[in-house]
């Protein structure tokens, strides 16, 4: 875990010395995200061969894109948090909590859907805010803090749902506008969440690459003490990041409730792990300080293709996990290997001639 903390990104630094300001093909090939892209292409090629034609149809594409879009909306803020040196496990219970919130408010009590949506989003905001506040006030590691809120929110959701709705699963009938915006299958196949994901990618990409906050996040993850010394409001930034991940988790939760017309108390746990996996595959350092939005998106896609592609192959489903494991390793390996390769064949700039 520590070795490549330095090795990989430094090589990147070297690579970029030889990139000129207008992007050449060579310099594009040497961008660090290329590795992740190659990883994705490899697993995609694998399933194109073994998955037969149905994997390549629009239905097949919808299959992994739909999964990727929900996972991706969670993975983006989790990725930002991880770059900033934090983890958020509580998303695993914010998703079902906000599902239940909208289902109880608008389904069980019959309030207008917009009220339910707002209530669910507020819930996400509140949990995120509490996480952030606890992390900066108590200085307990965010892993432990969000673990505690994971349990606490799950418990509250279950207890309150049973009291309020008398059941652990509540149906939700939403109107056409809500369906159109949040619960639609475009062309009968693509979840409308996909477009939301694209919107989130643009926003988070803007934050990380173009706004000054991106700089703050990278600096905070790189060295929190130096970042604070440099005048970055690390505390407010931490709260903002946790609030963001709470909000995104709530968004996924409420859109799932609208899409599937019902909410269950026990959903969402798989997102905890899967979002971390997607982000790490995308090249973000678990220890913070380094990562890119393009990487997170590619990592999410790779993980989704591997997870869903398997159902298009003729392989016995009993072996699915084995193939997922091997492909994940292959994708990440290719990622690393390719990066090294690109660097070795890069044009050499004699130092003697440059000074």
């Amino acid at each position, binding site marked *: 875990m520590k070795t490549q903390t330095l090795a990989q990104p430094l090589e990147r630094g070297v690579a970029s010395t030889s990139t000129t300001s207008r992007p050449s093909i060579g310099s594009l090939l040497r961008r660090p995200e290329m590795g992740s892209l190659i990883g994705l292409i490899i697993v995609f090629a694998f399933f194109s061969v073994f998955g037969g034609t149905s994997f390549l149809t629009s239905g097949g594409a919808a299959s992994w894109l739909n999964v990727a879009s929900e996972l991706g909306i969670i993975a983006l803020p989790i990725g930002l948090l991880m770059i900033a040196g934090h983890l958020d496990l509580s998303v695993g219970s914010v998703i079902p909590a906000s599902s239940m919130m909208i289902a109880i408010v608008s389904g069980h009590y019959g309030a207008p859907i917009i009220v339910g949506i707002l209530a669910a989003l507020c819930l996400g905001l509140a949990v995120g805010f509490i996480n952030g506040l606890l992390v900066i006030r108590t200085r307990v590691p965010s892993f432990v803090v969000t673990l505690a809120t994971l349990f606490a929110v799950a418990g509250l959701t279950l207890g309150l749902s049973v009291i309020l709705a008398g059941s652990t699963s509540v149906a939700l009938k939403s109107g056409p506008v809500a369906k159109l915006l949040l619960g639609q299958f475009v062309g009968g196949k693509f*979840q409308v969440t996909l477009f939301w994901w694209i919107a989130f990618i643009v926003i988070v990409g803007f934050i990380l690459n173009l706004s000054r906050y991106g700089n703050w996040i990278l600096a905070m993850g790189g060295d929190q003490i130096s970042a604070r010394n440099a005048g970055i409001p690390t505390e407010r930034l931490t709260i903002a990041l946790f609030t963001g991940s709470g909000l995104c988790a709530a968004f996924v939760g409420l859109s799932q409730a609208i899409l599937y017309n019902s909410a269950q108390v026990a959903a969402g746990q798989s997102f905890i792990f899967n979002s971390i996996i997607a982000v790490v595959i995308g090249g973000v350092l678990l220890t913070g300080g380094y990562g890119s939005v393009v990487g997170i998106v590619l990592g999410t896609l790779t993980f989704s293709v591997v997870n869903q592609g398997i159902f298009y192959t003729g392989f016995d489903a009993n072996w699915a996990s084995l193939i997922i494991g091997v492909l994940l390793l292959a994708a990440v390996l290719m990622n690393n290997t390719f990066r090294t390769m690109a660097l070795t064949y890069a044009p050499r700039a004699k130092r003697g001639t440059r000074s």
Partner: protein
Amino acid sequence: ETKGAKIFVIGGKADDPFWSKVKKGADDAGKLVSEQGGSVTWLGPQNYDNLGPDAADLIRTALSQKPDAVVGPDWVPEAMDEAFKAVVDAKVPLIIYNAGGMDAAKKLGAMNYIGSDEYIAGVAGGEYFAKSSSKNVLCINTLPGAANTESRCKGVADGLTKGGGKSTQLPLPSTSFGNPTAVAQAIKAALLKDTTVDGLVTISAGDANSAANAITQAGAADKVKLGTFDMDESTLQRIKDGTQLFAIDQQPYLQGYLAVSLLNTYVNFGLDLPTKPVLTGPGIVDASNVEATLNGVAAGAR
């Protein structure tokens, strides 16, 4: 004047839609128990990852609290029977419910068995499919390897074979568990890949919502019929609308309610029911009886 019965109920996760109904039954029966000075305590595992050992631990936990009676499911007999025997050895009245059947109850020296049987319920579902002329049914297992879900799928397969069809299991990797979209897309993929599939059965009501979604996305609504174990409001709504064939109901509320009530009356008044086993299912909910079922579901009891 009795001192009341201290009853321990071992069951599934409290947030599991199925088990929350069992729990509601137990809690409702528990209201009378506590009025009579007793108590009902629900013990459930955090997750199903380590089911047999965890459940055995729960039985021992119950026993260490000097219970007047214990109710528990015999999910993994090899792992749990030893603990159940310890309960019986301590002269604590025991009822097996939900899983294990009368055989297990007899072997362990339990008073009675209350519930359905996963396998028999599965067979009933398989036969229903055969009756509605489905030939190739996929059993979607989101908890592959767990004893109860495995026997559900096995039952469906055997029921169908009797009727001349076949059923295969589609085990989904644990990375999909609890994520309706991932489950839906996996099912859709299976439908696109094997176009001869004309029936789907899921192991829980939540998965049925995903499966219904998958069928729409695969554009196979007119061909693929959907059945499920257990049910919720959306499931029944679909049965009412005609987009789902049936749900296999084992009336979980009754399992909890009856088990607690029987043990309470036994401890307090020495009453015992001669009917053994007490079967709560399987019942099939389809278009013919869906209306009556809906009310119970809304109350969280079905």
